[in-house]
């Protein structure tokens, strides 16, 4: 559940910490394992990370369950991280989130797209905004959302 390529990256992280402190790389290792596993961490991923970093499984699980960005269930292909913090909220984010969720429901796109409300993503200039997987989309409105969603496959 950790690819060879990810292992190489993890090794680079391990090398940054003092010898014997390899567990400091746990967050990076979990992140990579999550990517390798198609977006979420299952039992095997957590065990693999524990094994690779010589940690107890439960301490890896502690980290994996603490942070919001580790998923523990299969995820849709696209995760829309919709900001609902102050700037975006003042520019109508809440209505847009409702709109987007309704749209996903109506068009039965649940397996393709899922929405998560998140705090400020540091792009207030373009509020309201969201992040879809690795890309930012700014100055959103209903029409733009329609275009973006129809472009997702």
């Amino acid at each position, binding site marked *: 559940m950790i690819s060879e390529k990810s292992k190489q990256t993890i090794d680079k992280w391990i090398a940054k910490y003092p010898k014997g402190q390899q567990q400091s790389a746990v967050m990076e290792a979990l992140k990579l394992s999550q990517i390798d596993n198609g977006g979420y961490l299952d039992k095997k991923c*957590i065990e693999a990370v524990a094994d690779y970093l010589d940690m*107890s499984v*439960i301490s890896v699980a502690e980290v994996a*369950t*603490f942070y919001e960005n580790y998923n523990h269930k299969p995820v849709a292909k696209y995760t829309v991280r919709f900001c609902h913090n102050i700037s975006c909220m003042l520019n109508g984010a809440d209505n847009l989130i409702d709109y987007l969720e309704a749209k996903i429901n109506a068009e039965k796109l649940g397996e393709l797209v899922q929405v998560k409300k998140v705090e400020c993503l540091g792009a207030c200039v373009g509020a309201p905004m969201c992040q879809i997987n690795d890309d930012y989309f700014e100055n959103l409105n209903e029409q733009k959302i329609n275009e973006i969603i129809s472009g997702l496959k």
Partner: protein
Amino acid sequence: MLEIEIDGAKVSADPGEMLIAVTDRAGIRVPRFCYHKHLSIAANCRMCLVDIEGSPKPKPACSTPIAEGMKIWTHNDKTKISQKAVMEFLLINHPLDCPICDQGGECELQDVAMDYGADISRFTEGKRIVEDKDIGALIQTDMTRCIHCTRCVRFGDEIAGVMEMGATGRGENLKIEPFLAYGIDSELSGNMIDICPVGALTSKPFRYELRSWQMQSVAGVSRHDLVGSNLLSQTYKGKVKRIVARENSDINETWIADRERFSYQGLSHENRLLMPQIKIEGKWQEVTWNVALDFALKGLNNAVLNNKQTDRLGALATNTATLEEFYLLQKILRGVGTQNIDYRLNIKDLDATINLPSNIKLTDLETLDYGLIIGANLRLEQPLINHRLRKAVLSGAMVDVVNVAEFDFNYQPNNHNIIAPNQIALLLAGVLKVVLESTQAEVLPDLQNLNPNATAKQLAARLLRADNAVIVLGEHLLNIPQVAIIAALITQIAQHTDSKTLNTSLSANSKAADLAGFTPGRDGLDANTMLTAQLKAYILLDIYPQYDFYNSPKAIEAFNNADTFIIALNSFKDEVVLEYADILLPIANFYESPGSHVNIEGLVQSFPAAVSAPGEAKPAWKVFKVLADLLQLPGFDYTANQQITSEATMHQNPKLSKVDVSKVDVSIDLTMKKGIDIIWQKSPYAIDVLLRHSPALQMTKIGQINTASMNAATAKKLKLTQTDDYLGVPVVLSETVADDCVFINANRQTWDRGQ
């Protein structure tokens, strides 16, 4: 020494101490949940807040180091207001289920809530609920009650050495749990029950049995291993209902191993032997003690006493017997004129009994800088000795292991030297040679031609360099043909490197047997020779030969010899015993008889009986006393167990070993023998009859261990695969087992091993 002021009184304290340690010593009560003196400081419950002069807000006593002239108040208004506030927060999510909670009456939360809690809750919202997991046969969880003190988490990480409990999730969703469906499997896990301040972790076998205040607590000492852990047996209406740890900082600190905690279950097993029985013409009859003892006397008279053949009488005993039992039984045998006495049943080469001194104190193990473990799965054999060694490792000591297979340690040994059993002597000879050369001592002629390998050089160098080294000898050595040489080599190595030794090879109450002289001396037969000597009569103390002997089939055969008269004192019924015995006397087991344990330091710890034995069973020492009277032996007019204790500890026991291990006689043949060696060790929860009858322990992962491990090459030689059985034990292939070695961890010993 610093001086601080607590509640207006001057108290002195050591620099660096935390406030709570000082208040505890001064007997001032500061409430706490997360603090435990043997665990790291978490300071997460905030219950221990105290007012410190000059500090605007109260501070936690558990994590505030003292400073000269500090003035603190533990009971003023400021403190009380904060403590009450903390209490209110803690109770927000705690269920009000004390009436159905096993912890009720011994709950730290309940106690503190009595002092600091409000009568009426202001919290009207819904409380959180946490689903329970089944984490094993020993610990019951009710996690809704958990207050997240993390004692159990830290215990796993810091004491048990395997982190099994953890805190997953965050904030309101934080849960204390093991990973998914993992259980709690460590050999020390039961201590979590003791340290959990609330009823979240309680004893599963004890669930819903009784309230703590209904029971009487009797101080006891465990006999399962060489430590002599102090404990409390808690009894109700003549039954042991629960065992908890009793603190003794020199012995077991505040911990006990799971087998100490849960073996009491076996006491009420249906297989307990309840009535004396005699066998008449092949049929068993229940009889009174008088009839039984008369029968015993007649039998002994006929078999050996009347015809003056006392040298054809032998006595063998389990190694969990008490000091007094060992002492009386040997006194009877010596009284009638024989020295055929032994308790060392599962050793190949008794002449070479590893009669090495154990000359280190348990507490000193913590300050070692080097440990060399030879032939031991120390963690499961002697959990608390291992714990002390682990402490040394955590504070920087180095530990090397020379074993026949790679065992799980809960610390990181420097080197796991996995070598074939028949190579161990050679390795140690190499170590000795290097040691002798570097200390400019004369190299013995036998060692001249030896070429020490890299491992030997490394071990020797480390032993020489260390200021405080210990060599730990384990049980596996008793199985190795060259055990005599090994014993001699280790004595020499220890001498020349100024190392201490810790001999854990004979466990349980063996040291008491040695002290009591329960060994053949120079003129008697030892356990192995007795079996081949066609004795006419035996007195067997709580022996179950299919489990206990080095060569069990041979022992069973010897006992079944038609004209051998056998008096069997047993605490449990047993098919095999029924087969060969002529008379069966029911005796007490743990907690049912007063007695003494002698631990690895030679410390004699006496304990009273907590309950009486079931049915007609009697403490064996009383049986021996009556038997001695019937035999009209002088010197048995004891009225109390303590009289025997003092006599046993005073008397000079006959010299145990016939071999002088101070001189090495390595000429015996240091070249290793070819062929495959079997190292057999009883499963950790099967080492004595009580453990074998304790259901909860048998259900644990450790309790289920039953494997014949070997590497692929050995399996090939033996023509075995992963799915086969070897000598009735399932084969496990593992490359962490040495060449030419089968490591069997099983209860029974069923195959003829020759001698």
